[in-house]
């Protein structure tokens, strides 16, 4: 080997490298904004007015901001749960069900197990994490040991969770009274609220801690390294001696546990009891958050805040103008739709889109597949 002819290490283009993960989401946001504006205009409203009300209602002033942060918190949990699985190439779209089961577990421990305050909240959190984990273990084990598509199982596990928790809240452990809920949790289990204007509570710090923890695991540990490789190229990981099965189960369980914690935050911090059917679809919004964040745990914070602020703003919007708060949901899922099609950006810039293989693969690994066509 000649040692003389070493090419100097090419410095990576710093600006482009920095911008690359942001360009896709920005394009999606712009497209969604434009489509939303057209919709609003079609409804006979002024788009600029609507958007400014939305933004103002979302983030201007502490009262609004605290509502935004309250809405952000569950989205961080579910978004992070989905992002953790996407990162490792798995599709946990069952965060909704895992969150419900976690919430139920927290609700039960919260009212039925009297404990001193120092222990009660952690006990509820552990119960919630375990509940979410349990719910995620079904798709995880089926995926890994029976090769059953986790997407379909997750899809079915969501209504099962809703109905099963509903059964508990309306029959098995129903609190006396007309409302379908469990008895209120004991005061010792309440996550302290620190805003007069909303139900913003200490749960947001748990959410932040989870994001930081996942970021550290992803960036600095051996496991995180292996998950990253699995997500980009599962065959390479398997070939290279990664215990893909065990890691896949672990990722799904962690993902489920995080979603379960999200449920605990809702029960311990917002509602102070488990209510039947309390979630407006946080688990599905989590998919939108994870897609927008490109599965990056820190990105999840920003994406969750964007959607949280929008949904806080949407409440104000509905009150101030005649536009329904569901405008935000439309915007949110236009963003997901555009991001799902992100390989077509390459196509826009003149490269042919990759053909999706029959088996499920993560959008990010598409790049991997484009360059590998065999020559005659």
């Amino acid at each position, binding site marked *: 080997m000649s040692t003389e002819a070493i090419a100097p290490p090419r410095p990576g283009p710093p600006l482009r490298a920095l911008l690359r993960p942001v360009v896709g989401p920005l394009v999606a946001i712009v497209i969604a904004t434009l489509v939303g504006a057209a919709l609003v205009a079609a*409804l006979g409203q002024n788009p600029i007015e609507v958007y400014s009300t939305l933004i103002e209602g979302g983030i201007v002033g502490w009262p609004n901001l605290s509502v935004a942060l309250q809405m952000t918190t569950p989205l961080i949990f579910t978004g992070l749960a989905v992002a953790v699985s996407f990162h490792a190439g798995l599709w946990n779209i069952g965060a909704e069900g895992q969150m419900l089961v976690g919430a139920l577990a927290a609700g039960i421990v919260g009212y039925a197990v009297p404990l001193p305050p120092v222990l009660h909240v952690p006990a509820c959190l552990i119960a919630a994490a375990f509940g979410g984990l349990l719910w995620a273990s079904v798709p995880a084990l089926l995926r890994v040991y029976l090769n059953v598509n986790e997407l379909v*199982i997750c899809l079915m596990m969501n209504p099962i969770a809703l109905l099963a928790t509903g059964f508990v809240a309306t029959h098995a452990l129903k609190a006396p009274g007309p409302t379908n809920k469990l008895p209120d949790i004991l005061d010792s289990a309440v996550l302290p609220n620190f805003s007069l204007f909303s139900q913003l509570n200490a749960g947001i710090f748990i959410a932040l801690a989870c994001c930081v923890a996942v970021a550290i695991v992803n960036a600095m540990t051996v496991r995180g390294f292996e998950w990253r490789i699995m997500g980009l190229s599962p065959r390479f990981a398997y070939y290279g001696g990664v215990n893909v099965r065990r890691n896949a189960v672990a990722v799904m369980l962690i993902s489920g546990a995080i979603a379960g914690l999200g449920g605990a935050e809702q029960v311990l911090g917002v509602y102070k009891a488990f209510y039947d059917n309390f979630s407006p679809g946080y688990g*599905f919004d989590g998919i939108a958050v994870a897609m927008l964040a490109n599965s990056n745990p820190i990105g999840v914070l920003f994406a969750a805040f964007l959607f949280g602020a929008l949904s806080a703003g949407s409440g104000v919007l509905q009150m101030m103008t005649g536009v329904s708060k569901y405008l935000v949901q439309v915007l949110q899922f236009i963003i997901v739709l555009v991001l799902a099609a992100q390989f*077509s950006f390459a196509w826009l810039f003149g490269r042919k889109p990759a053909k999706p293989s029959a088996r499920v693969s993560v959008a990010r690994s598409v790049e991997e597949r484009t360059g590998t066509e065999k020559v005659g």
Partner: protein
Amino acid sequence: MISEIAFSAIRISTPLIFAALGGLLTFQAGILNIALDGFMIVAAFASIGVAFATESLLLGVLAGVASSMVLAALLALFNLRFRAHIFIAGIAVTFMAYGLTALLLKGVLNEEGVFSSDRIPTFAPIDIPVIRDIPVIGALISGHTLLVYIAYLCVPVVAWCLYRTRWGLRVRVVGEAEDAAAAAGVNVERLKFETMLLSGLFCGLAGAYLSLGYVSLFAKQMTNERGLIALAAIFFAKGNPYWTAAVALLFGTATALSIRLPQLTGLAPQLLQLIPYVVTVLSLIIVGIRNTRARHRHGVWRFEI
């Protein structure tokens, strides 16, 4: 009592059968369409909106079908042309549809949660002369509205299309071996697009039935995961139209029971509503075990993500 439940089971199963027929066409072409709920909700909204505005049932149903097919075309465009993952795109389309209908409910009909009006025409029950007089069965079959009969009659039509026509053969081959179809000169993408549009057509009928036939109102998210139950039926029956319809009828019966039985026995309705989903998970487990046994003998890549 029992015949009453059976009568309502036939009624309740109608949107399930429509949606399942729509879903199984794409299923046969190799696309798992999870946006059935989204297609249905826009159709339910457009139907009732147009029926309210024009006082015409026909225009209402047509508007429902058209809107659902537009949404189907959008999903097909993103999935087939822009290569978006069908599940993510399907979820996005569904929730977009939920949001859009709620947005328009407020923006156009100026209602928050539920819209209803006396101006909305209703379907008249059809009494079938001879069948009406057959004991037991007559009371079950006669006296439904038009869309109910259309749904059940569509089952053999779809089966005929799938198993007896050139188009159906091609659809099924595309679903099983795309490259074989392409090599034989079949335009795979066009065929998939067609099945997706038909999926929109049937879900359009399902949605129109929901808001104009089943009840005479629109409520946000009124499809109540019927698309998912339909999907479960398709899975369970592996896409065969007759079996899918039978399973959908079974699931519909479970729903009918879940409405009526608790009144009598105090049983929780949720337990019966769980049936479709639990049955589907169990059947997937059985299929998984079978496939794993087959793979185990000599599979390369014993783990695929």
